[in-house]
């Protein structure tokens, strides 16, 4: 009896392990903090992490800087985003296929200042990258620009 039960159990465990590893692949990092000065925080799934240089970022992360803070990140498609003091930047959506450069990147500046150098996603398809502010949608056509949101 033990044997007949243990096989399906083992198979189920293998299935769970496979599902978990697929999950892990789907939640792979979208970018990395390369520069950080002063107070930098990353809000992720209800937790707040210190925004240190080297931290790998995930889709849905929200980066916040304090009055003396600034942060610079490199996304997997080589987009560069950097925020000045008192900023709130959300990485709302990021998908990227490194072989084809197809993907989608939506970021949102809720407050503060942001400098953007777009990467391979915007180069491949100008519709595929947007930066939103409280009242506008910015479309990016292979470009460097800056945005500010004053409250």
């Amino acid at each position, binding site marked *: 009896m033990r044997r007949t039960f243990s096989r399906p159990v083992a198979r189920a465990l293998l299935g769970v392990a496979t599902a978990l590893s697929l999950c892990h692949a789907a939640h792979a990092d979208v970018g990395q903090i390369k520069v950080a000065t002063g107070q930098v925080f990353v809000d992720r799934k209800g937790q707040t992490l210190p925004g240190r240089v080297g931290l790998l970022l995930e889709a849905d992360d929200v980066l916040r800087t304090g009055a003396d803070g600034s942060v610079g990140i*490199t996304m997997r498609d080589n987009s560069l985003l950097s925020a000045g003091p008192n900023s709130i930047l959300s990485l709302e959506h990021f998908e990227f296929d490194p072989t084809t450069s197809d993907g989608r990147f939506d970021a949102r500046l809720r407050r503060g*200042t942001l400098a953007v150098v777009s990467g391979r996603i915007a180069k491949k398809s100008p519709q595929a990258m947007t930066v939103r502010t*409280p009242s506008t949608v*910015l*479309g990016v056509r292979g*470009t*460097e620009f800056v945005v500010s949101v004053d409250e």
Partner: protein
Amino acid sequence: MNSLARWTALLVLVAGCAGPKETIVLLPNPAGQETAVTVTQADRQVVLSQPYAAARVSRSGTEAFASSARQVQATYGQALAAQPLPPAQFTLFFVENKDELTEESKRIVDSVFAEIARRPVADVIVIGHTDTVGNDAANDALSRQRADVVRAAFAARGLAADKVVTIGRGKRELAVPTGDGVAEPRNRRVEILVR
């Protein structure tokens, strides 16, 4: 309160009610390519396509204006100072039909390591390519092998393998376009991005 003070108070109140004010400025493109940012607010769109072309957006609408390097530095200096170094690209070449680097390319590896040392947290992407001699399966395998050889060479010099992502593209992205079955040394390469 005299009428001037009353008007001033009213103006301040109106300005205070205007909600968030947003500014967007297109920066010059160092590579000189044509670039643009579209600014869409509800059903209105403004296209910024000249260096320092700018838009100011408030609840009352979008207003285009010309900004300048000085204004950008004053408002965005700290954001720009935090910009990561752009990825640096290197190309290594291989001996025909082998996973062995040419002599010149062995020296380029030194520049790759100098670039890695410049960066506080470098991550490295290694992309292998082949020329068009042979079928896809063979070239895919060879391109991956070439990327792996480079990763191993980097590991031997002390670069942790988990900092390196390898990709094999076979003969799909030729540096020099050729027909099929053409031996072309410039296509037998590995591209390295240090980010």
